């Protein structure tokens, strides 16, 4: 039985990375690789990004950071920001992975493991600028900076960055968040060196709000060519991945294709367009392991494009996402491992 395939354009990925870097310069790109490089496959993504000259990589968890380190052919900075276990902290320290730290509890464990191993931890301290997820509240920030400086003196730590996430609820609220972010940096600079890497913005704000950019920009989605839901197209940026399935049977109602909801294609997308060599068709239903494409003219073995750049009449992942009120990232990352990742150029 033929498996669905996610075809990856290395050329487009490199072009997107270059478009993003040009747009955000002089801010430096940190390419975010969380969740298997947004479902694209981390090995291919790291190898290709390295060809494009990327030298900052962001992983959500330590395991992903270690994987990036393993794939990298030359030195680069790797950042992992999930609050992690003690054994993961030790792994990160030994692999020279920068740690994102957003609570006093995690900070104390990082200091403790660094002291035991005798390795100076490279820490990016997170200020909570409004999301109330990970991140030190501003009222606790001065005391946390004191703890950081003390650990620096003891040789356990180096504060290399300050960072946060924006809510993107409104420009005004993001402006307020930036004020908190800048005050946090000022506070840190009063007791020691100004942290070199300041990163507040991800894809959308890095692209559209230059005044919010720090010295570093954490970008995943736009490099993979995933535009924001309900957001405009991006100049010089196109989807890197196209998802295809194969016609495995022809019945009275249409063509049966080899992808279903169990492969991560939401069944609520029934009614969506797909691309074929003969133009756009409509998916009548999405069953567990197969889907039905309406109309005649398709033959067993024909390829159907579920999403992509639109070259065969298919929609982009973000356009599909908008049909069910979500984001393109969910369409990509929901795909299961059964979808074969294939690098095409």
């Amino acid at each position, binding site marked *: 039985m033929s498996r669905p395939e996610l075809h990856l354009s290395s050329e487009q990925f490199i072009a997107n990375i270059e478009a993003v870097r040009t747009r955000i310069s002089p801010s430096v790109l940190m390419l975010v690789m969380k969740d298997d490089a947004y479902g694209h496959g981390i090995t291919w993504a790291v190898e290709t990004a390295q060809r494009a000259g990327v030298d900052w990589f962001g992983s959500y968890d330590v395991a992903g950071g270690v994987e990036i380190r393993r794939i990298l052919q030359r030195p680069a900075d790797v950042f992992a920001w*999930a609050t992690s276990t003690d054994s993961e902290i030790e792994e990160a320290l030994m692999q020279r992975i920068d740690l994102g730290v957003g609570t006093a509890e995690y900070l104390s464990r990082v200091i403790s493991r660094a002291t035991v191993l005798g390795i100076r931890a490279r820490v990016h301290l997170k200020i909570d600028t409004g*999301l109330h997820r990970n991140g030190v509240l501003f009222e606790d920030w001065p005391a946390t900076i004191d703890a950081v400086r003390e650990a620096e003196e003891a040789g356990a730590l180096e504060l290399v960055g300050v960072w946060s996430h924006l809510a993107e609820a409104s420009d005004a609220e993001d402006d307020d968040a930036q004020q908190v972010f800048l005050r946090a940096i000022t506070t840190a600079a009063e007791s020691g060196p100004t942290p070199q890497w300041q990163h507040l913005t991800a894809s959308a704000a890095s692209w559209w709000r230059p005044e919010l950019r720090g010295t570093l920009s954490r970008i995943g989605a736009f490099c993979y060519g995933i535009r924001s839901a309900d957001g405009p197209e991006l100049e010089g940026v196109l989807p890197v991945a196209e998802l295809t399935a194969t016609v495995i049977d022809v019945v009275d109602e249409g063509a049966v294709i080899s992808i279903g909801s169990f492969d991560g294609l939401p069944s609520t997308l029934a009614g969506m367009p797909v691309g074929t060599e003969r133009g756009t068709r409509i998916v009548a239903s999405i069953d567990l392991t197969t889907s039905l494409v309406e109309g005649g003219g398709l033959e067993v073995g024909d390829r159907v494009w579920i999403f992509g750049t639109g070259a065969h009449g298919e929609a982009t992942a973000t356009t599909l996402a908008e049909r069910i009120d979500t984001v393109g990232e969910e369409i990509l990352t929901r795909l299961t491992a*059964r979808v074969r990742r294939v690098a095409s150029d």
Partner: protein
Amino acid sequence: MLSSSALPRAVISRSALTASAAAAVAAGGRIADLRRDAWGHGVLTVGQAARVAGIAHVLVDSQSEAEALALEGIDAVVDEEPDIDSTLLYGLPDADGVLASRPILRLAGRVLSTKRLKPGDAVSYGYTHRASEHTVVALVTGGYAQGIVRALGNNAHVEVDGVERPIIGRVAMDVCVVDLQGHEAAVGSEVTYFGGIGPAAPALARWSAVTGLTVAELVAVTGSHAQREWEA
């Protein structure tokens, strides 16, 4: 790849599997649907339980998979119609949240950190939730990249220490925020999204009602993205 404490865990209960396989056999049928790695539960474990329970055949995705299972004494087929009730076999809820057998798979996250909120404090992207009173919230592993559907934010509960607590704000790619409603939880505490024997056991019915997705795809996709473990 290393295991990661940042990923949700799919905990497979062997005792629940034994009981549900027996219940499924008793209800009739000869062929169980084990496609897509037994709906995200693990084809070998479910296949062995099916064999022990006396299920004649299991349906899998490919001939090579069937051949591998044959070495385990499991009779797998690739192009027949399954006729055993999958809802019974996997312990899945119906639309009303009724479970005819115990769930085999429990999806678990863990508390990464907790934080005090004041009235008016917003939570997560888009600030879709604001605290109405002083409370404590937990940042919990699990997001839409692991199949915890983004639409569940502000619309579903998780189980913490045996009590249901709401997911507040947007579900992010890898995390979500849970309102502990004045209670505390230690870093590392376990959170149950669905399954198990507590109030979250039938939660997939709620997930299905909120998202419009089927219970079958919800469990198969989360099961395939999670780190799998087994318990007695």
